[in-house]
């Protein structure tokens, strides 16, 4: 029985005790006897559940230790495999446990932590309808990702005059570079 259920039983017994106390005050004998019988039944159930919980609790460390020992034995095999690879002139840096042994290790871990791991769950694959994608909602990025192709900054280096009309514009140029002062004119 789960601890929550035990607690619930306890509350129920306390409630019955309060009822019995009330009935004693009222001196109602048949009702008292009925409540006492009910109380005795609940007490027996509760004692049974407590005994069961204590037994489970006493066995739990042994189970965990056994499973951890399994894992350790599996891990201890790795140096032996590495040594064998070295003997076969293989580089240990590329060693990967074979699939069966890795699966055994994973299985041992799972047994050791049974009941403490999250239950199995299957993630939806959004891109495959048959894998649940049919019910996965889609979203868009909030902006376009623009493909780029370079163009140079010549427009920012040349002389620009913004116009509001787009009409032709006369550009005057003065060149006085050939002239300067002389001692006489």
């Amino acid at each position: 029985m789960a601890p929550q259920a035990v607690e619930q039983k306890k509350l129920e017994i306390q409630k019955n005790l309060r009822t019995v106390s009330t009935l004693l005050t009222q001196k109602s004998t048949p009702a008292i006897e009925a409540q006492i019988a009910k109380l005795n039944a609940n007490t027996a159930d509760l004692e049974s559940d407590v005994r069961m919980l204590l037994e489970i609790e006493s066995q739990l460390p042994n189970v965990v230790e056994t499973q951890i020992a399994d894992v350790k034995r599996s891990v201890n095999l790795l140096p032996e495999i590495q040594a064998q690879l070295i003997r076969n002139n293989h580089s240990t840096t590329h060693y990967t446990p074979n699939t069966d042994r890795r699966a055994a290790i994973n299985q041992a871990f799972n047994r050791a932590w049974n009941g403490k791991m999250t239950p199995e769950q299957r993630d939806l694959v959004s891109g495959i309808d048959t894998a649940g994608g049919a019910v996965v909602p889609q979203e868009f990025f909030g902006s376009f990702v623009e493909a780029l192709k370079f163009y140079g900054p010549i427009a920012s280096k040349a002389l620009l005059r913004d116009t509001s009309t787009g009409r032709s514009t006369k550009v005057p140029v003065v060149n006085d570079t050939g002239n300067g002062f002389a001692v006489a004119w």
Partner: protein
Amino acid sequence: MLLLGETSDSGNSVDPILFSNLANTDALVSVLDFSFQFGDDVFNLDTLLNTIAASRTGRTLEQAITNGKDFAGTVLTNAPTGGLIAAAGNGGTVATAGAVSYADAVKLFSSVDPAYRADGHFFAHQTVNDYLAAQVTTTGRPLYKTSDAGNLILVQGKELLINQAMPALTSTAGVAQVAFGRADKAIAYTLRDVRVQILEPNVQQLTKRVVFSVRFGAGILDAANAVKVLKS
């Protein structure tokens, strides 16, 4: 006091040379159609259209200023023929066909009057840029340093800016490979704001049409002196 007319000369006067260049304009357009469905579903339509308009304008201006052509390569009716590259002065010829050496870059740099070297830039196609970036010294180190902006520095701290409208690296003789100088003293251009207009829907085709348009005009300034071109 003698008042002189603008076309008169006292005999001792040394007058500056005055001239002007008319930046006649061309209308440049680009069209985009989208379906009613697209218009209903798409998000940020305004941002998308503005981004497209800006990118197309930038690509087109590079061609128009550099070569006097539109993005498709068609010669603009009113722009200066050949654009900036055709108007630029002679900056020499490369020593080896299909290559641009450091000596070539110095030759080009030296051909420009020092007044135009300040604030001047080198311009070249990406392939020329990449060729120069690959040049190494005898000890295997990069020949050209880079600026904080990531551009190659060719001569005396002057950066090389990529201009995709310039010709690619080639061994064909007479093709502009690198330009150097002050572009703002060589060419002026006018631009009316880029317009993005969505026309009335075409109910037969269930589409809407977007017209991007800009008016572009360019005039040559002191291009022969302000910018020089190194040719293959």
